[in-house]
């Protein structure tokens, strides 16, 4: 009877385990295995080279680490600027304002648009010759600022990062808004009865209760921003030179341009481990803060 119960329990869990194994665990292990081979993705034969690919990434591939830094910069801007905007807008829409459903809809439009389309449209807006942004700058009497935003190494990465924020702030907005709406209104009323003003209510009620939501948004922002690449392909292709290269573009370059599938797999594993580590550190840090 007990064995039957155990088997039944396993039977319930088995479909999820099988699906998780087929689509996540086995591919991950296979990619890790491929990372230890020199393979062009075509020939059936692969040459085992141990950890050489990983050693090359850590000791020789300066472009890879430069791409990591670029992704880090985009992530930093997204974590601060994008999430600040998302939180402020969520706060605004959480109040009893007119047409708040309309605003919610508008703010959520960018995330649902195709990244390629967004990239191409912004490339056109920021174009140095016929772009709308430069025309606008000239129109408001700032012709000195007009230049080619995406071809200038000093502005290309920031321009891409800001477009990435524009594209992604809607997700943060939605999650923050959902979080704000779960805060019991009684807490604000109690604070008011205790003599707290709006600022004190925000500091002592809203912020502490929003920390778990902020952690979630933060982790999602890190994962999304570090992996950004479609927008970058559409806007700059990684250029000028290596100024907007990001890790996923380097993985693609290893696969497509160099036909080094094994190396691309090693890059993918390294990147994945770094992302998990960053998310874990952030989670632990925020847990400590909450405590």
């Amino acid at each position, binding site marked *: 009877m007990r064995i039957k119960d155990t088997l039944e329990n396993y*039977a319930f869990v088995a479909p999820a385990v099988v699906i998780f194994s087929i689509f996540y665990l086995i591919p991950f292990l296979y990619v890790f295995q491929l990372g230890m081979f020199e393979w062009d993705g*075509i020939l059936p034969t692969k040459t085992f080279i141990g950890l050489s690919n990983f050693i090359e990434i850590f000791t020789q591939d300066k472009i890879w680490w430069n791409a990591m830094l670029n992704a880090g910069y985009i992530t930093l801007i997204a974590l601060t600027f994008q999430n600040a905007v998302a939180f402020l807008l969520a706060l605004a829409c959480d109040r009893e304002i007119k047409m708040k459903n309309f605003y919610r809809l508008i703010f959520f439009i960018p995330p649902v648009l195709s990244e390629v389309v967004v990239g191409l449209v912004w490339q056109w807006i920021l174009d140095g*010759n016929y772009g709308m942004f430069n025309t606008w700058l000239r129109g408001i009497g700032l012709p000195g600022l007009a230049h080619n935003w995406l*071809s200038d190494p000093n502005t290309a990465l920031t321009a891409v990062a800001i477009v990435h924020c524009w594209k992604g702030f809607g997700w943060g907005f939605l999650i923050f808004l959902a979080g704000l709406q779960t805060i019991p209104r009684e807490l604000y009323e109690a604070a008011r009865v205790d003599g707290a003003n709006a600022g004190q209510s925000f500091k002592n009620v809203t912020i502490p209760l929003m920390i778990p939501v902020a952690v979630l948004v933060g982790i999602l922002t890190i994962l999304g921003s570090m992996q950004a690449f479609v927008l970058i392909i559409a806007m700059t292709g990684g250029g000028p030179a290596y100024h907007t290269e990001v890790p996923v573009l380097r993985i693609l370059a290893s*696969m497509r341009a160099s036909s080094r599938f094994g190396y691309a797999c090693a890059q993918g594993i390294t990147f994945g481990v770094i992302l998990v580590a960053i998310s874990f550190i952030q989670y632990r840090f925020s847990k400590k803060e909450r405590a």
Partner: protein
Amino acid sequence: MRKFYLVSFAICIVAAGILISGCAPHGSKNANYITVWHWMTDREAAFMELAKRYEAKTGVRVNFELYAPSDAYSQKVRAATQGNTLPDVFGILGEKRDFGAFIRAGHILDLSPYMLANNSEWKNQFFSKALAVNEFAPGNNYSTPPGIYGVPIDVMTIQMLYNKDLLKQLGFNKPPKDFAEFLEIGKKIKEAKMQGLVSGWGEVWMIDCFANGYAFNIMGKEKVLNTIKGKVAYTDPDWVKVLSLFKDMQDSGILATGLVTMINKNAEQLFANSRAVFAFNGSWCVNVYKGMNPNLNYGAMLPPKVSEKFPMSIWGGAGSSFMVNAKSGKKEEAVKFLQWLTGKEQQQYLAEATNNLPSNKNTLNKLPEVLAQFAGAIESSTHPNVWGVSEFPAVIEAFDKGIQSIIIGEKTPEQVAQHVQSVKERELAKKR
């Protein structure tokens, strides 16, 4: 509970069935049905029309399956090699090294016996340069058995284009005859606040193509190939001279602003709308410009020479080629279809419908003016896939990205040459 077990079991069976059927070889076993994979969106309608004609003539249905963009197509073909799901006919995008790997893995049929049959009747109808891209010579560096492995369906050359009206506005009735005159025009363009040369230099391979032409012109083919073989360093004065051309062009004002991140589609729009004086583009552009601006008044020319010592070269040869799946059960039918597709009448139709240069040299009599200029440059064409040696991808990337750095004023030609040479030495050491 029994119902649950039954449902679970049924789901597992269905899932297994789907997985197993996904591993089955692609295409039906019906001999009257050929599947062709391609990436050429601009030729889709023409291919469909030709498929209809072939079916009416032979009763064999040809199913053209389009997978675009080309990057996605490339990955699909590679993935299909692992699952043995390649179609009867397909094309390969990539370098000769990858082409060789497909052959060594047994995915591509050697077409030499068909090409050489009846006194090389089929082979002789193609431009030799178009066929060369698909050929592996005995003792080649790719360890690939010698043979002809692909059928060119069109040819292409990549040249310089000039807008006749804009040049006239600047006071020039003819295109520049040499590089010095080209730079002079650049100064006039800068004064007139116009845009000079546009091209897809954001997609770095076009920079490589432009630079290689000048490398051939400045130092000759032999020295370029010796550099690839590792016998000449990229720090050689001739290579520095090649890199310096980009600084000279940037300083003169001939390069359009934003060129380093410009994709070819944008460059084509700018040139077609008469917003740029020069363009560097392939012969496929004739069809593109026609669609964007049928009244565009332009001509094609070889990039202006720097030196008289060696001839100017441009990239060219086979534009697109089709290969026959060596593991297909319908090899003979596939070869017959390709023989028909490259026949004079079909090639004429393809050239007219798509404005691409036909691979069949007997079809060149009725071409529009600009396309004829592209065709005339075939003799000056070369391509890395016919050099017999391949540069390391990391070196090509360092070279092309280095040129972008020169254009944006971040590095000098000497610094780029040093960096490219260091990457080359690292790759050579790795190979050893």
